[in-house]
């Protein structure tokens, strides 16, 4: 006998968390930002931190992150999210403070602020969304663009002799003593998204326990910048981004930092 599943609250296994607003996201179809926003909102909801969380949004596509998650937000100047988060956390140490930054924001214009916040070991979480391109401004080459990757400003592909090498800021900050947790995740598949959520939870717990800075890199796709369909972009990311930006935990500090 066949039966129809009843659409009732008891039968619901998964749906939009109430922490996400009803606004339709301005991101392109299939953009990883939407999934990452959702995971962040879910972790905050599960930890019961809605009233205690301050997010710092960057300049980039995710500049409007404050429209989508029901928490307190500060919108920082380009690249300065870590500096703003430092102030927010030091003035209100009981709050959970995180920054949400893209690769153009964190690893290009904001390198100094980010590295020094990491070195000081601020008790914040840095969520770093790396799509290897400047998505908002139309797909120009970023410091994280892979060698040989074609962008609007490197139409023949990135060449090391002219443009330098792509750099892995997660590995760089993992060498700093103030950083307690560095991990690189992605959200292109259900398994990857579930792992990324666990990593975010770990990072948020570290921040609340005062263990130092947690750095969560999300390798993500930019299908409009890469001129591909969302599904193809995810596949391209798996084939080309993951060999260079290897997924997994880069640093898990077992001992809390010395006071």
């Amino acid at each position, binding site marked *: *006998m066949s*039966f129809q*599943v009843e*659409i*009732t609250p008891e*039968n619901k296994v*998964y749906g939009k968390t109430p922490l996400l607003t009803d606004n339709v996201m301005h991101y392109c179809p*299939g953009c990883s930002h939407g999934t990452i926003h*959702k995971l962040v909102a879910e972790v905050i909801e599960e930890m019961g931190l809605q009233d205690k969380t301050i997010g710092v949004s960057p300049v980039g596509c995710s500049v409007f992150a404050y429209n989508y998650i029901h928490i307190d937000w500060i919108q920082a100047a380009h690249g300065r999210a870590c500096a703003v988060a430092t102030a927010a956390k030091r003035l209100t140490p009981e709050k959970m403070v995180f920054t949400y930054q893209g690769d153009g924001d964190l690893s290009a214009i904001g390198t100094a602020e980010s590295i020094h916040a990491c070195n000081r070991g601020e008790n914040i979480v840095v969520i770093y969304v790396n799509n290897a391109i400047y998505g908002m401004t139309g797909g120009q080459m970023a410091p994280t663009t892979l060698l040989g990757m074609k962008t609007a400003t490197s139409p023949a592909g990135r060449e090391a002799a002219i443009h330098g090498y792509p750099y892995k800021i997660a590995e760089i900050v993992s060498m700093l003593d103030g950083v307690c947790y560095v991990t690189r995740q992605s959200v292109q598949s259900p398994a990857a998204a579930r792992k990324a959520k666990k990593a975010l939870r770990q990072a948020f717990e570290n921040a609340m326990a005062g263990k130092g800075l947690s750095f969560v890199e999300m390798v993500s796709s930019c299908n409009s910048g890469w001129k591909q369909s969302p599904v193809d972009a*995810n596949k391209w990311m798996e084939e080309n981004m993951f060999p260079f930006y290897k997924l997994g935990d880069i640093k898990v500090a077992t001992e809390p930092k010395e006071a």
Partner: protein
Amino acid sequence: MAKIKGTVTVDVEKCKGCGVCVVACPTDVLALSKEVNGKGYPFAMQANPDACTGCANCAVVCPDSCLTVYRQRDPNA
């Protein structure tokens, strides 16, 4: 007959038709519609609803959180 079945509801006007849920579905339940929504996007729909197990893989990867998953045990079993 499966003892546990699932179903998916789609917020059609929020869906942007990216198709990420379609490839994430392990039982090929979802497909993109031939019609378009108010913004001109094809939207996710259940092409093969009987195969749904309610695993919620589609909703986990949905960037626009427009999928809600329900799951129920067969009341006749």
